[in-house]
Structure formats: structure tokens, C-alpha cells
């Protein structure tokens, strides 16, 4: 299935692009998408997405079709997924 992955903030900078269309196995969840993106782009994006245990960071914001969800939520054909790591003021 095809999904669109959009990066926000530091993740956009690390990925070097705004968004990309990716092909994932049917039934893949958001965590699998994060893993896929980490493998595809490597560092520095990888360490911004995944913890030392190779799971998505607890602070990672994952919005599927504009609704923030856990990384265990299953994606659907055509899903739009926005990934962001928290930013702050100053």
C-alpha cells in the first residue's frame, strides 16, 4: 500500500525533504513506517526516530490523517502520516 510521510521540524532537516510517498506491506502500522524511514535515510534521522532499543521514541508525534495516534495504529492505503519531534520556545 502507498502512504505519504511528511516530516516536521528537526526531522525535515534530518531527512532532507518535506515528504515522500512510500510503499509498505498491507497492514503495516505507524511504527513499521517509522522503522522503514529510519532504515531508508540512516543517520542523523535514524537516531531522531528510534531509541537505543530500536523502537520509536516516546516523544515522537505521529499524526495519521491529522489525528495524533500511537505507533501501533495500523495504516491504510493512502494514509498521510506526519512525523514530528517536540520543539520548544525561546
Amino acid at each position, binding site marked *: 500500500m502507498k502512504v505519504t510521510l511528511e516530516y*516536521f*521540524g*528537526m526531522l*525535515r*532537516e534530518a531527512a532532507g525533504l*518535506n515528504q515522500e510517498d512510500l510503499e509498505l506491506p498491507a497492514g503495516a502500522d505507524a511504527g513499521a513506517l517509522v522503522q522503514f524511514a529510519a532504515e531508508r535515510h540512516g543517520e542523523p534521522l535514524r*537516531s*531522531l526516530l528510534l531509541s537505543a532499543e530500536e523502537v520509536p*521514541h*516516546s*516523544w515522537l*508525534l505521529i*499524526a495519521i490523517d*491529522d*489525528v*495524533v495516534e500511537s505507533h501501533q495504529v495500523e495504516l491504510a492505503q493512502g494514509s498521510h502520516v*506526519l512525523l*514530528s*519531534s*517536540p*520543539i*520548544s*520556545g*525561546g
Partner: protein
Amino acid sequence: MCPGELTDGDRSRYQWQLGVSGFGEDGQARLKAASVLVSRVGGLGSAVAYELAAAGIGRLVLAHGGNLRADDLNRQLLMTDDWIGKPRVQCAARRLRELNPDLEVVAIEANISDTNAAELVGEVDLVVDCAPLFEERYAMNAAAFSKGIPIVECAMYDLDLTITSQQHGRTRSLRELVPQPPVHWKREFPVFGAVSGTVGCLGAMEAIKILAGFGEPLWNRMLMMDLRSMSTRLVTLPTP
């Protein structure tokens, strides 16, 4: 005169906003009676405080430690070049009093911490979080939740910004959304003053809406803007 009661001088000063749909004299009186904590008053907080002062908030508590540096001046619009080396928060207070002599300003020469958060948050009606460090934000957010006070959470990086509003019983807290500080976050990050000014104005508008009781604040929603492409997303956050 009751707190918040408008004078003829108030009606004259704020006539351009008194006609805003859903606001009116009742909304203006609420702003006049309100007290807001802004922490800090850097690029983001300067814009928040300036807009709130202009809008007629009765009392602003500003918390920001340290002295002004030259590299603050690309974004900290309440600062002036002749103030370099002196306490930032005092410069901010001076500029705000110049803008609005009716405003009561309390300048605290310290950043928010676990030590002072409860006391400072306890004396206001709303908090606008403009702080760069997550430890500082957690302390402020926890104190606001403990007292049931609304808090507007503003953030920025490069040409991106986010803003959401939170309150105990109505939304999740900052700690629930961001369980631990991101290890890669750094105190200094790339940003233009126009970006901090944009999110600061949005933060001030959120505060005005919440205090005056009109419009639709960003409860359980986060506005995410990319000023590089001028694209926006309004995402729904998990509820408590």
C-alpha cells in the same frame, strides 16, 4: 470601581478591538481583570507580552533570568541595543510600561523552575509557556495543571512552529504528550525573529480568547505551521 470595570479612557484606547465579534466590553473587562505569567520574554515571549499589553491585560508577570546579549536582538523585540549587559526582563518591563502605562508589570529576574513554579503560577489566571528548556516547561505545566490554570504551549524551530492550549480536566498535560525531554533538543537553535513573532502573536491570541471567553481555543488540537512553504496543519491530540 470593580476590578475590570472599563473607564471612558479604556473605551477610547481599545475601541478598535471592542467591535470584535464575541468580544465587546465584557471581554475587555475580563482582560483588564486578568493576570498572565509569560515565561520567558525572549523572541517568543516578547511578542506574547507586547500583544497582551497592547490588548489591555491588567497584569503581566514576566519571568526571565540573565542579561541581554547582542545575539538576542535578532528576535527579542522588547529589548534595545543600549540595554546589552543588563537584565533582559527589566528592559522588557520598561518597554511594556511605555506602551501601556495602565499595565501592572511584575518582573522576575529568574527562569521558571521546580522551586518557583507553584508560587508564580499561583498568582495568575493563565500561563503562556515560551521557555526553551523542557525541564522548565514541565515545571510550569505541572504547576498550571495542579492549580487548574490554562497554559498556552508555544514552540518553534527553524521556520516551523507549533501551538496548543492545555488545562487540567480538559486536555492532556505536556508530560503526557512528551513523556521525557528529547535528548537531541538544544538550548540554541536556528530561528528568525519573524518566526518567534508569528508564534508569539498566535500565543497572545490564544490567551486573549481563553481569558475573554470567545472563539475556539486549541484545546486538544495543535496548530503546526511551516513558514518555509506557508503550509499549516491542525492535528487532533489524544484527550485525557
